């Protein structure tokens, strides 16, 4: 690996007496298209009490590397190289690639333990958490471990990872815990065996940002109080800055750069690392952009007035005391997803809706698009009242409304080509009876979202996630709507791809001047695009204002917490913010 810039030490092995040392690891998978090399000559090492973050985008091979350390790869994988794993107290080191099945079983859990990405699937739903914790203990007990002893240790470890009332909770089943608690339990299962190394594979990706901050704190305690080393696998540079001592950047199966965290963030050497860091949206860039947009909007309005065009005035969306309740089952009370929310979006204005899971943000987006029924208050969209409106009444207004869905994988009919999908609004609203007639406009639109016109003949599965999301923008904008709703359009994308899609969004918005409701869980993304930001929490709108107001001087305690829990890609700054977050949590 001649391209690796390893500046933490001059020698080949930067860490003396490592817990884990990976040398020249290569892993190949069998696939429909023939063998695919997922990991290609990776060398890494994790020292005692150290947190090494392996960071990379999807397909970089970081998760495969992590799983290979515990020999958890599927049968279709073949690996070569050396993975030396040594116990907590030094002692004997084993090469996981070549070790016997029995020895591998002994290593698992004691020498290295794993924390998974999705806590709800990493826990077996039909066994109590206490049983599952005790099972690991029994698997490694040298003698017989009594039931009460195993239980006592389970209760103890649950308490130490911050599960309240562990004596009672030890007998509960996984579904009785919240997402953050489940991840604590998964960590407890790893810690109870006192492993030398904890491999945390995207441990916070499935969690809300405020919960993420708590779990990161817990992982830090794993190192400080339990003395475990951590191999942290993540795509989130903010998480890296928060937790890591050293960082290895992976790209297409190789480690392209390795350095200690402070150095890497301050002076990235490799071009890929630099691009990656530049692509991360950070809070506070939005104010300037919003002012520019406001100026342009005024200009556009003047031009239109001068040209004598009569553009419909009044807000594009106006919600007053909006309430949306999902019906309950079998006469039970329903779930109130949106509870008395009021906001407006003016012509050409971008409102960012931000909130965590369960805040009601997606419900509002769906209601505006007429996909979910409004059950109380008033919601006027493009001049039509949606409360009590019938499907048929909404149809004429749909040509003025575009929608971009969160998951680019499922928002296209797999049986239609991209051109057919983009042409569908034209065909339905009379822009052309057939695809051939609409094709010119479709090609023009694909051009506008920077996709070659020839991509129109492809099927959705032949495009990457980012390309599909751009095609989705093309479909939403092909009728030049006055309002665009974007529901987490970039949350399924890698950070560099996200940056491109966001940039495209900004450009198109400037060009076409549509109003937009932009929904995201990421404050930084919302800040980048929005004129105003509304913060939702448990179905209520807690704060609304310009980006500068919300991010610069948040008033509501929830907004403050949300802001403080967002990790920034700068280790020193992040350490400060961490202190702030702790102060808010107490």
């Amino acid at each position: 690996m001649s391209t690796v810039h390893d500046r933490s030490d001059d020698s080949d092995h930067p860490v003396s007496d490592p817990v884990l040392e990976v040398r020249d690891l290569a892993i190949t998978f069998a696939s429909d298209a023939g063998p695919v090399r997922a990991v290609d000559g990776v060398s890494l090492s994790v020292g005692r009490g150290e947190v090494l973050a392996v960071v990379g985008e999807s397909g970089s091979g970081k998760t495969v590397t992590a799983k290979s350390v515990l020999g958890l790869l599927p049968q279709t994988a073949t690996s070569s190289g050396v993975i030396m794993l040594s116990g907590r107290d030094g002692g004997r080191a084993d090469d996981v690639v070549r070790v016997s099945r029995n020895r591998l079983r002994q290593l698992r859990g004691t020498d290295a333990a794993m924390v998974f990405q999705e806590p709800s699937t990493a826990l077996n739903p039909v066994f109590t958490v206490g049983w599952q914790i005790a099972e690991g203990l029994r698997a490694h007990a040298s003698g017989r471990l009594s039931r009460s002893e195993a239980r006592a240790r389970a209760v103890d470890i649950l308490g130490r990872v911050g599960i309240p009332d562990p004596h009672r909770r030890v007998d509960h089943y996984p579904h009785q815990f919240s997402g953050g608690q489940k991840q604590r339990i998964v960590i407890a299962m790893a810690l109870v065996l006192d492993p030398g190394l904890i491999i945390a594979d995207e441990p916070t990706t499935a969690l809300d940002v405020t919960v993420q901050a708590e779990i990161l704190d817990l992982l830090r305690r794993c190192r400080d109080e339990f003395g475990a080393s951590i191999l942290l696998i993540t795509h989130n540079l903010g998480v890296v800055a928060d937790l890591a001592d050293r960082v290895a950047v992976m790209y297409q199966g190789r480690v392209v750069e390795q350095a200690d965290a402070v150095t890497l963030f301050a002076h990235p050497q490799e071009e890929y690392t630099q691009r990656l860091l530049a692509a991360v949206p950070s809070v506070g860039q939005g104010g300037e952009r919003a002012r520019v947009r406001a100026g342009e909007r005024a200009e556009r309005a003047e031009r239109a007035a001068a040209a004598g065009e009569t553009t419909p005035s009044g807000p594009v969306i106006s919600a007053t005391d909006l309430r949306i309740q999902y019906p309950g089952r079998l006469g039970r009370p329903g779930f109130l997803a949106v509870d008395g929310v009021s906001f407006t979006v003016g012509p050409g204005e971008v409102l960012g809706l931000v909130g965590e899971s369960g805040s009601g943000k997606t419900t509002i987006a769906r209601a505006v698009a007429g996909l979910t029924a409004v059950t109380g208050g008033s919601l006027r969209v493009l001049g039509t009242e949606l409360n009590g409106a019938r499907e048929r009444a909404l149809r004429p207004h749909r040509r003025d409304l575009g929608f971009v869905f969160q998951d680019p994988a499922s928002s296209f009919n797999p049986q239609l080509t991209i051109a057919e999908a983009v042409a569908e609004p034209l065909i339905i609203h009379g822009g052309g009876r057939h695809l051939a007639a609409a094709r010119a406009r479709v090609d023009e639109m694909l051009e506008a979202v920077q996709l070659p016109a020839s991509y129109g003949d492809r099927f959705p599965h032949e495009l990457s996630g980012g390309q599909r999301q751009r095609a989705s923008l093309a479909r939403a904008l092909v009728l030049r709507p006055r309002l665009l709703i974007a529901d987490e359009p970039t949350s399924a994308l890698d950070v560099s791809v996200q940056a491109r899609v966001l940039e495209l969004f900004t450009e198109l918005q400037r060009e076409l001047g549509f109003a937009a409701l932009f929904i995201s869980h990421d404050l930084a993304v919302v800040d980048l695009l929005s004129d105003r930001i509304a913060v939702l929490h448990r179905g209520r709108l807690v704060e609304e204002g310009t980006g500068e107001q919300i991010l610069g001087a948040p008033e509501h305690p929830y907004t403050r917490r949300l802001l403080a829990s967002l990790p920034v890609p700068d280790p020193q700054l992040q350490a400060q913010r961490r202190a702030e977050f702790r102060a808010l949590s107490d």
Partner: protein
Amino acid sequence: MSTTALTEETVPAVTPTSRSAGGGLGRYLVVRFLLIIPTVFILVTLVFLLGRTTGDPITAALGGRLPPAELAARVRAAGYDRPLLVQYGDYLSHLLRGDFGTTISDNRPVTQVLTTYGSATLELTVYALVVALVIGIPLGMVAGYLRDRWPDAVLRVFAILCYATPVFFAGLLLKLVFSTWLGILPVSGRASTSTELTLQLLPNRTGIYLIDAISSGDADAVPDVLRHAVLPAVALGLLTAGIFLRLVRTNIIGTLGMDYVDAARSRGVGELRLVRKHAYRPALIPIITVMGLQIALMLGGAVLTETTFEWRGLGFQLVEYLQARDFVAVQGIVVLLAVIVAVTNFVVDVIAALIDPRIRY
């Protein structure tokens, strides 16, 4: 005779009714219990209407054998000349009071037919179920764990052969080999004539021969009854065993691929335990649900098995009544089978709910 299980074997592990907490189980059970009513009602209606499309039961059964005048008199006496809707209402109200009517061909109360022959069918089905479970579940776990290796390939072909073979052909083959050629097992019937006589004289007969034989105290009766049961039980059991094998295999493969199995593996839990505990227990919920649906298949198979082995149960009797076009008797038997199927499915869903902590709590 159905490979129904193939298309619908992975029922989602959580029933939607279970989502919200608090009193969930009780409410679920009540709703699930109430669902029995429309199921039975629809089948009763369906069979009633189908039976009447060929005319009234008396003409269907006796038409041509009696002079027209006498036939008409009997039709009138039985009330079959009234409007269909009135007859239907009448039939339902009788059913609710437990009155299934009287057979036309041999003039017996249908309830008596049901109680006499029902126990034989119950006995056969239970034996077959035991065979199916003992063969199907362990082999399915082995096949699932060793997927795509040679034992799995052999077991899968075995499973397919099990349900590709019509149960009556399997029965004929077994008879040919074990009765005719080897001569070690009886050809047909539920017991030899002497045992039948002994059991007939018993004061408190259950109709379940194994229990009766034990209570008779006759040392020869028990092995005799068991020897007669082997071939029918294996013939009917193998069919279901093939389906269970495949069902367990698919679900075990599904759960073996879950994160929690990998998570347990990463804690150092052994492979055998991973299959036996972590993969098997969650897989059990859909397995049990689908097994419940197989009860209908087993009853259909029982009709064929009973005919093959002259096992005098409900199925055997049903075919005789069908051949005699005795729709009163057919209706009675079909209604009983419908109730059994509906109640079994309810019980199975309750068991599945009790195993699944997400429904229990």
